[in-house]
C-alpha cells in the first residue's frame, strides 16, 4: 500500500487547534442576533427598538440607524441591510441587537416590536405565473431578468422535423449544508474595521462590506477563520456588515452567528425551476432545439442575469444544436435570495437535459448513449453559441462510461438498472489571484489570502503545484495564510478555480524565483529544488548548490528570497449576433464528466438503493491524486442528496417547512455506494500543468445518472427532482408487478 501524505491541517483540526468562525472569540465580545421579518411580504409600518434598548447592556439598530446603506456586488446587497418600508421574504432582517450573552441577545431580539401589514405572498413559480409567460412577460414586475437567444429559422426547423418531442421538468431547491453555520466576529477601533469570518472569499467580503458601509477598502480587514465547509454558501458576504455595525454601535467586539435553523431560514439555497424542452429529430439526428426556463430567483437582485443567462446554456448541455432557441425568465418570489451551491444549478440542468435527450432517443428508437455521442461536442467544434470548444475529455469519458455500463448491465441481477449521466462545466473562471513566495534555506513559503475550506485545494493543491514545478518535497513547502491587510489579492475559493487560477499565480511566482536562482548561480538550463542534508539545495546542469549560498545576507536575515506571481484568466467569446435579449456567457475550460450508476429499485414502494457507482472525470492533469479522488467522492455523495432526498419545501405563505436536518435529508454514509473514480487526463486546461478545476464538475452528472438507472430498472420516467420514493412510485405504472 502506498502511504498517502497526511494533510497539513489534519493535526490542527483533530487537535482542536484550528479555530473555525463558529468558535472564534474575542475578549469582552458581545453576542449579536438578527430580528427577522415575521411574514414573507408586507408593508413594514413599525420597528420599535425601545423595549430592547431598555435592557441592560443591549444595543439595537435598524434601518433608521444605517440609512442609505445599499450597494455591494453579491448576495442581495443592492437591498438595504435592514428592511425599510416593505419586507419581501420571511426572516428578512429588520433589526439587529447585541447583548452580553447569547440568551440575552435572543431575548432582546424577541422584544423588538415589528409591525408588518400583510401583502399577497407569491411563494413559487406557479403562483407567479399560473400560465407560461407570454410574449409581454419580460416587462412584468414579476420578471427580474429575461434572456433570449436564437440561431436559424427555428420554427421552420421544427415544422420540417420528422418528430418533435416536448417535455416539462421541475427541480426544487437544495441547501449547501456546510457543517459550520455562518459566523462573524467584528471589532471596530477608530476607523479600522476588522472582521474575523468564515468565508470562501476574504477579498470579496472586503469589497462588499466597503460598499455596504460606505467605507474605503483600506479601512477594512477581513480575517478568514478556518472554514467548516463552504460549497458556495460562504462565497459572498453575509453577516459581516451586521456584525461590524453592531460593533461600531456598541464599542465592543460583537460575534454574530447563525443557529442551524437560521442557516436554513436565511441561507441562500439554489432555487426551483420549471423547464420546457422541445426537440426536433430527423433521421435520428437533432435538427432543432428549444429550451424555455422559469427560474425562481426569490428576492435576489444581483446575480439574476448571470443565473439565468449562464444556466440556460447548461440546459442545452454539451450537445450540438443546428437551429435552437433559448428563453429564460428570472422570476421574483417572496423567498430569500438564492445562492451558489457546488456547480450552481448545473446538476439540476444536467438531470433535465440528460433525461430529456434519453427520452428523445427512446422515442425515435435510438440507443441513448449512441444518440448522445452523435451530438456531443468535440474539441475544435463550435458550441451552439459559436464558441470554439477547447480541449475536452468528455467524449473519451463517455466512451469509458458506456463500456463499463454495458458490462454492469450484463452482470446485473433482476430488478437492477444501470444508467449513465453526463455533465459539463466551465472551470477556472476569469477571476484572478496573486501569491508571494519566500525561499529560505529550510522552507519554501507560499503566502496567500485564502483559508483552506476543507477541499484541500489551498493547503494541498498549492503545495502540490509548487512541488511539481520545483521538485522540492511537500515537507519543505508551507502554505501560509494572511488576512486581507497582509496577503496579496485573490478572488476566492469558489468556481473550481483555486488550483487553476491561484495555483497559476503560485507557479508564476515560482518560475520567477527559479529564474533568479539560475541567474545568480550562472545556470542557463532550468533548475529544480531538492532537499539535501536538512537544507534546500538548487540542482542545475552544473551541479548542486545550497540555497544558502545563493541568498544575500539581507535575504538570509529577512526570511529568504522573495518572488511574486499572478494570474488573471481569460475566457473565450460567443457569437453576440444570436442574442436577442439579456446576457449570455462564454466558457473558460471545457470540463466534462460521465458517471455510471447501478440501482436497485423497489417497484412497490419506489425506494431507490445505489448498488455501485463509477465516475470518469476530465481533469486535464491530476495535481494531487488523493485530494483529487476525495473531491470526486465527496461530490458524488453530495450529488446523491440532490438526486434522491434533498429538497427545501416552502409553504404558500413563504415559510420554509423543513428548516433543519430532520426533514431536509442529506445522504448518510449508508447511502453512499462503492465508488470507482477514473481520471481522464491529457485534455489540458488553463491551470498549472494543464490542470482543470475539480471542485464542482463531479457533482453535475449524479442526478442524471441515477434517474437514467431508475428508468433502466423500471421504466419509470421521473421528470422532477429529487427522485423520492413517492415520485418514483408515482411514475411506475401501478399494475406492473
Amino acid at each position, binding site marked *: 500500500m502506498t502511504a498517502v501524505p497526511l494533510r497539513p491541517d489534519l493535526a490542527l483540526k483533530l487537535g482542536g487547534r484550528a479555530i473555525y468562525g463558529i468558535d472564534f472569540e474575542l475578549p469582552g465580545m458581545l453576542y449579536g442576533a438578527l430580528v427577522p421579518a415575521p411574514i414573507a411580504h408586507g408593508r413594514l409600518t413599525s420597528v420599535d427598538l425601545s423595549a430592547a434598548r431598555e435592557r441592560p447592556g443591549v444595543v439595537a439598530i435598524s434601518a433608521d440607524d444605517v440609512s442609505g446603506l445599499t450597494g455591494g456586488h453579491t448576495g442581495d446587497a443592492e437591498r438595504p441591510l435592514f428592511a425599510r418600508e416593505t419586507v419581501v421574504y420571511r426572516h428578512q432582517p429588520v433589526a439587529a441587537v447585541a447583548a452580553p450573552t447569547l440568551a440575552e441577545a435572543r431575548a432582546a431580539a424577541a422584544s423588538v416590536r415589528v409591525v408588518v401589514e400583510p401583502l399577497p405572498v407569491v411563494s413559487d413559480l406557479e403562483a407567479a405565473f399560473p400560465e407560461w409567460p407570454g410574449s409581454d412577460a419580460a416587462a412584468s414586475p414579476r420578471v427580474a431578468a429575461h434572456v433570449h437567444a436564437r440561431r436559424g429559422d427555428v420554427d421552420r426547423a421544427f415544422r420540417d422535423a420528422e418528430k418533435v418531442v416536448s417535455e416539462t421538468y421541475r427541480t426544487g431547491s437544495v441547501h449547501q449544508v456546510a457543517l459550520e453555520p455562518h459566523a462573524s466576529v467584528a471589532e471596530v477601533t477608530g476607523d479600522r474595521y476588522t472582521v474575523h469570518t468564515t468565508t470562501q472569499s476574504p477579498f470579496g467580503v472586503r469589497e462588499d462590506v466597503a460598499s455596504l458601509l460606505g467605507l474605503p477598502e483600506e479601512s477594512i480587514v477581513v480575517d478568514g477563520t478556518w472554514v467548516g465547509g463552504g460549497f458556495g454558501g460562504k462565497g459572498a458576504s453575509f453577516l459581516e456588515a451586521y456584525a461590524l455595525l453592531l460593533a461600531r454601535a456598541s464599542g465592543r467586539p460583537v460575534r454574530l452567528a447563525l443557529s442551524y435553523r437560521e442557516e436554513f431560514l436565511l441561507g441562500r439555497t439554489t432555487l426551483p425551476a420549471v423547464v420546457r424542452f422541445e426537440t426536433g429529430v430527423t433521421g435520428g439526428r437533432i435538427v432543432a432545439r428549444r429550451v424555455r426556463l422559469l427560474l425562481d430567483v426569490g428576492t435576489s437582485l444581483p446575480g439574476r442575469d448571470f443565473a439565468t443567462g449562464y444556466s440556460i446554456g447548461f440546459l442545452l448541455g454539451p450537445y450540438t444544436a443546428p437551429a435552437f432557441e433559448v428563453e429564460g425568465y428570472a422570476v421574483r418570489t417572496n423567498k430569500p435570495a438564492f445562492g451558489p451551491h457546488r456547480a450552481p444549478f448545473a446538476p439540476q440542468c444536467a438531470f433535465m437535459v440528460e433525461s430529456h435527450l434519453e427520452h428523445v432517443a427512446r422515442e425515435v428508437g435510438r440507443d441513448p448513449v449512441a444518440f448522445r455521442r452523435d451530438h456531443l461536442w468535440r474539441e475544435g467544434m463550435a458550441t451552439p453559441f459559436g464558441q470554439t470548444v477547447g480541449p475536452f475529455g468528455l467524449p473519451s469519458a463517455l466512451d469509458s462510461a458506456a463500456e463499463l455500463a454495458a458490462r454492469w448491465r450484463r452482470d446485473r441481477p433482476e430488478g437492477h438498472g444501470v444508467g449513465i449521466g453526463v455533465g459539463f462545466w466551465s472551470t477556472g473562471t476569469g477571476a484572478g489571484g496573486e501569491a508571494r513566495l519566500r525561499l529560505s534555506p529550510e522552507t519554501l513559503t507560499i503566502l496567500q489570502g485564502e483559508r483552506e475550506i476543507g477541499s484541500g485545494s489551498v493547503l494541498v493543491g498549492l503545495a502540490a503545484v509548487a512541488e511539481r514545478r520545483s521538485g522540492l518535497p511537500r515537507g519543505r513547502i508551507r502554505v501560509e495564510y494572511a488576512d486581507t491587510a497582509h496577503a496579496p489579492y485573490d478572488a476566492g475559493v469558489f468556481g473550481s478555480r483555486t488550483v487553476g487560477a491561484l495555483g497559476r499565480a503560485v507557479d508564476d511566482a515560482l518560475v520567477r524565483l527559479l529564474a533568479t536562482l539560475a541567474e545568480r548561480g550562472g545556470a542557463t538550463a532550468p533548475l529544480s529544488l531538492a532537499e539535501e542534508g536538512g537544507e534546500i539545495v538548487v540542482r542545475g546542469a552544473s551541479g548542486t548548490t545550497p540555497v544558502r549560498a545563493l541568498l544575500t545576507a539581507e535575504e538570509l536575515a529577512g526570511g529568504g528570497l522573495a518572488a511574486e506571481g499572478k494570474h488573471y484568466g481569460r475566457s473565450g467569446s460567443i457569437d453576440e449576433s444570436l442574442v436577442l435579449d439579456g446576457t449570455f456567457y462564454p466558457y473558460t475550460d471545457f470540463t466534462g464528466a460521465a458517471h455510471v450508476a447501478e440501482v436497485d429499485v423497489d417497484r412497490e414502494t419506489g425506494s431507490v438503493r445505489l448498488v455501485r457507482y463509477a465516475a470518469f472525470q476530465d481533469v486535464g492533469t491530476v495535481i494531487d491524486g488523493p485530494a483529487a479522488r476525495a473531491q470526486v467522492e465527496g461530490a458524488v455523495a453530495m450529488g446523491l442528496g440532490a438526486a434522491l432526498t434533498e429538497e427545501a419545501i416552502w409553504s404558500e405563505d413563504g415559510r420554509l417547512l*423543513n428548516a433543519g436536518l430532520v426533514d431536509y435529508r442529506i445522504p448518510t454514509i449508508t447511502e453512499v455506494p462503492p465508488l470507482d473514480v477514473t481520471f481522464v487526463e491529457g485534455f489540458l486546461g488553463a491551470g498549472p500543468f494543464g490542470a482543470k478545476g475539480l471542485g464542482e464538475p463531479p457533482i453535475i452528472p449524479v442526478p442524471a445518472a441515477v434517474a437514467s438507472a431508475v428508468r433502466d430498472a423500471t421504466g419509470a420516467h421521473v421528470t422532477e427532482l429529487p427522485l423520492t420514493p413517492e415520485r418514483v*412510485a408515482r411514475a411506475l405504472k401501478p399494475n406492473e408487478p
Partner: protein
Amino acid sequence: MPEFELVTPATPDEAIATLRASAPGDVAVLAGGTDLAGDLDQGRVAPRRVLSLRRLPWRTLDWNGESLTIGSTLPLRTLELDADLARRLPGLYAAVRAVGSVTVRHRATIGGNLGRAAPASDLVPMLLALDAEVELLGPDGLRTITVDRLVRASRETALGPAELIRAVRIPEARPSAYLWQRVRPFHDISHMAVAVAFSPSRRSWRVAVAGFPPRPLLVPEAESALAGTRPDLVSVERAAEAVGRHAPIVADRRASEEYRRRLVRPLLRRAVAAAGGGGA
C-alpha cells in the same frame, strides 16, 4: 436554548415529589433527551425545570421466561444488543433499529419514546402489536395500562401530571415484524409503517399501522382477516383492504394520502411473510 434548572433526583420518590411540586408546563421530563432537546433548542417548550431520570435505577432488562420487562430509561442500543431480543421478538428488534441512528440509540429510551408520543414513533406501533403494558409510577403508587390507552394522540398521553413511566412489559415472545417506508432509509422518520405479531397464546394476529398523525393504531378489522398461523395471500389482501378502509390515513408534508395507501399492501404482505405467516 432557554435557561432552565436541571434536577437529577436519585430516587423515584424524589422524582415524583419534584413533579408534584411543579406547575404543569413548568417541568419537562428528560430521559435520553433525543426528542426533548430539539424542542428545547427550538424554543417549542420553555420549562423552568428539566427533571432528568438518569440517576433512577430503571436501566433494566429482564426476561421472565418468554415475557420481557424493559426499564424505561434503558438505552435503546442496549435493548437492541440483547442476545435474545432478535430471536424472541424480531419485530421489536426491527422497530428499535428503525429509531434514529446508532448514536441516537445510545441515548434514546423506550420510556422517552412512549412518553413523548411522537405521531411517527417507530416503537409505539410494534408495542401495540405486542400487547405491551406500561407500568406508571405516581403519587398514589403503581398502575399498569396498555400502550393503546397510554398513547392518546400526537404528543398526548394518559400520564398524570406527577406520573412517570417506570417500565414496559411485553407479555410473550411473538413471531413479529416491523416494516417502514421513508425517503432516506436510515436516520429518517417513517411516513408509513406496519407492525404485525402473531400471539401463540391467543392464536391471533395483531396489526398496527403508523407514520401518519395523530398516532399509531391497531386495526382489529385487519386482524380478523388474518386467520390462522399462516394466512394466505387472499387473506393478507383482505387485511390490507381492511387497513385501507378503517385506518384514518391522511396526508402531511412527508407523504400524500394516496402514496401512504399504496404502501399498505406491500408493507403488510412483507411483514406477515417476515413474521413467518407465509404470503409473498
